[in-house]
């Protein structure tokens, strides 16, 4: 009750007037009527009413109310979190090696960043996940829908058709051998048309459109509650050429990262952000590092780095709160993102990569 007026979400002009009229704390305002307030303070009746409503509402619930998020500041015990994590879903990638090092697949309620050089397979993985998120629950999927925010123009519908067709065939194969009735039934809805209809695509041409889209996402997600995956491909592109002011860029990126984390938590979905690589000149050596700067490294919870090792595509789990750092090989087939075919040379590569003393720079060591 003794709460200072400055801590309420009132507009600055009104706050100044209240203070100069002698109101310091919430308690002072509790007994006042709107008309009285408007006369004394010199504001309109509507403003007075709004002010009183804000004060009363916040005081009664003891919790600051901000439009948009309803579950921020929840408390959990570790046991409750453990139970939640057990039931939390993963989105499989169809590359079992990658799913293994991630602990089951791309986790829901977390933000994952995928960095890599151009052409290594970041967009391919994103397209694969947009299909995989829709796999029905009886097959081990999360039966969700996907939002794809494209800033580079790399989304190719034909490729999604290929991936979706391969996924349908794969599931039919499983259902064929299992012969369980619920599998057959689930597959009736898992058609190409349905898969494509549940990928919601937004093309953002610059960072303003991206910011605008992210502001509108909470409303969209409330309308489409089955969405379990939000992809931004790539988050680096719009911020790398249009913005000269680096501090503005850092601020906007941090804001975006926080919004994505809160979306992931509030709507129970996985967020994937793809990043590019840039060249850093360091002691006469040119290194490949993820773009967007040092501070961006803190933004995502999980960081995957894709790169080439000789002629193999490698994925490194670089940062994860629960899984250990490892490297695996993968390949891109006409059916999509898959495990690499194991050969003597490739297992040699993997062993050497995992044994090597890893320095904290994600560049390729020669």
């Amino acid at each position, binding site marked *: 009750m003794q709460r200072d007026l400055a801590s309420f*979400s*009132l*507009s*600055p002009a*009104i706050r100044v007037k209240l203070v100069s009229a002698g109101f310091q704390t919430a308690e002072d305002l509790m007994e006042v009527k709107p008309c009285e307030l408007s006369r004394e303070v010199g504001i309109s009746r509507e403003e007075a009413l*709004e002010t009183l409503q804000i004060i009363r509402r916040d005081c009664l619930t003891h919790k600051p109310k901000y*439009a*948009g998020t309803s579950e921020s500041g929840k408390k959990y015990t570790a046991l409750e979190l453990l139970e939640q994590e057990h039931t939390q879903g993963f989105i499989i990638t169809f590359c079992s090696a990658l799913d293994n090092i991630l602990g089951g697949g791309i986790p829901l309620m977390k933000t994952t960043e995928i960095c890599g*050089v*151009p*052409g*290594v397979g970041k967009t391919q993985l994103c397209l694969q996940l*947009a299909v995989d998120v829709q796999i029905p629950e009886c097959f081990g999927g999360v039966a969700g829908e996907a939002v794809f925010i494209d800033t580079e*123009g790399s989304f*190719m519908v*034909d*490729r*999604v*058709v290929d991936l979706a067709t391969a996924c349908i065939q794969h599931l039919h194969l499983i259902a064929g051998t299992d012969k369980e009735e619920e599998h057959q039934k689930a597959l009736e809805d898992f058609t190409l*048309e349905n*898969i*494509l*209809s*549940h*990928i*919601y*695509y*937004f*093309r*953002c*041409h*610059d*960072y*303003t*459109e991206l*910011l*605008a*889209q992210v*502001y509108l996402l909470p409303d969209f997600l409330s309308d489409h509650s089955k969405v379990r995956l939000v992809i931004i491909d790539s988050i680096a*592109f719009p911020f*790398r*050429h249009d913005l000269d002011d680096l501090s*503005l860029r850092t601020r906007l990126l941090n804001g975006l990262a926080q919004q994505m984390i809160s979306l992931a938590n509030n709507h129970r979905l996985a967020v994937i952000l793809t990043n*590019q690589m*840039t*060249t850093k000149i360091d002691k*006469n*050596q040119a290194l*490949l590092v993820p773009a967007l700067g040092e501070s961006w490294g803190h933004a995502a919870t999980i960081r995957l780095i894709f790169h*080439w090792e*000789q*002629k*193999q595509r490698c994925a490194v789990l670089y940062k994860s709160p629960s899984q250990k750092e490892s490297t695996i090989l993968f390949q*891109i087939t006409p059916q999509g993102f898959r495990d*690499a*075919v194991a*050969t003597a040379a*490739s297992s040699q590569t993997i062993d050497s990569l995992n044994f090597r003393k890893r320095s904290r720079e994600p560049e*390729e060591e*020669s």
Partner: protein
Amino acid sequence: MPFFSARSGNMGHKKLRRVGLSQELCDRLSRYQIATCQDFLSLSPLELMKMTGLSYGGVQELLRTISRACAPQMQTAYEIKTRRSADFSPAFLSTTLSALDETLHGGVACGSLTEITGPPGCGKTQFCIMMSVLATLPVNMGGLEGAVVYIDTESAFTAKRLVEMAESRFPRYFNTEEKLLLTSSKVHLYRELTCDEVLQRIESLEEEIISKGVKLVIIDSIASVVRKEFDMQLQGNIKERNKFLAKEASLLKYLAEEFSIPVILTNQITTHLSGALPSQTDLVSPADDLSLSEAIVMKNEPTLKRQASSKMTVDGIGTRTRDNLSKAIGTSGSSCVVAALGNTWSHSVNTRLILRYLDSDRRQILVGKSPLAPFTSFVYTIKEEGLVLQANRGHRDTVTFV
């Protein structure tokens, strides 16, 4: 200093006045130099509260209104697909090199950027001239029945070659002079010799495309003006160059997508000589390191090795030493040949086709980066009618190598 125009055809620069804000609010904001949606969305809620005098809830509401004004429209993937099938304009421009078309799911993709890179004299300009002819052909012959904008920075385009190619490639269609004249009149050539001029030309293209019915944009080459003007030895220039290239890429992508047309860009190649920065940074994929792909050819056609290495001459750009071929697998410390313009540029193009020499007659075209196709190479020669593929099926590289 090149002049960067602020306009790039997007919603962020919409004036707040047009979004439906009250005049009073707009005036208040303009006092703080907030006039467009972009300015507004770049501020934090606290700053906005100060400037607008609204409560936090009011500011959130305003943010949503402004976001709705400049956010993109949603489409489902299914809608994109059905619209594409229903569209009269095709999704690809066929190259008439049938094996290449098959790999690329139709040809050069409309709505995205395709880059052709390779050593000098390999056939990049020939390819561009060939595509110019194809784009002007009627749709039932695989063309786009439209005009072509050809931005030439090296003065390599000759009308004579265009006509020669058209006549030789489609002798039955171009049987009258009238048809030849029609095709030639549809190719609009612009000679630009500086970065500034190229950028200004690209910015003016939107109106050209609408007024002339342009269905293909070619820039031959992107690399030459950039490499002339940005000296890579100077420190700050890498950033400047990348900024310029990113600006160009974003403008071209917008045009490609807005009008659903293909955009073809040619690039050069560069050599990293041993002793200099031993960097993996420009090797964006194994296909890009042209000496690496040499190794594939060597494995399958060992007889070519001697011929290939004896043909290579020291030639400025495009140098390849004999040592390279034997050290091809190991990439550190040896010379290697990569596409120019760096890593950041490689992110911007959607498809990359790489040309290179096999011997004095035969060359190879390699699909280096593509969202639709794996690494595949095809052998071709250059004849009167342009590029001609030799074998019927491309040689596809498997990803794993022993």
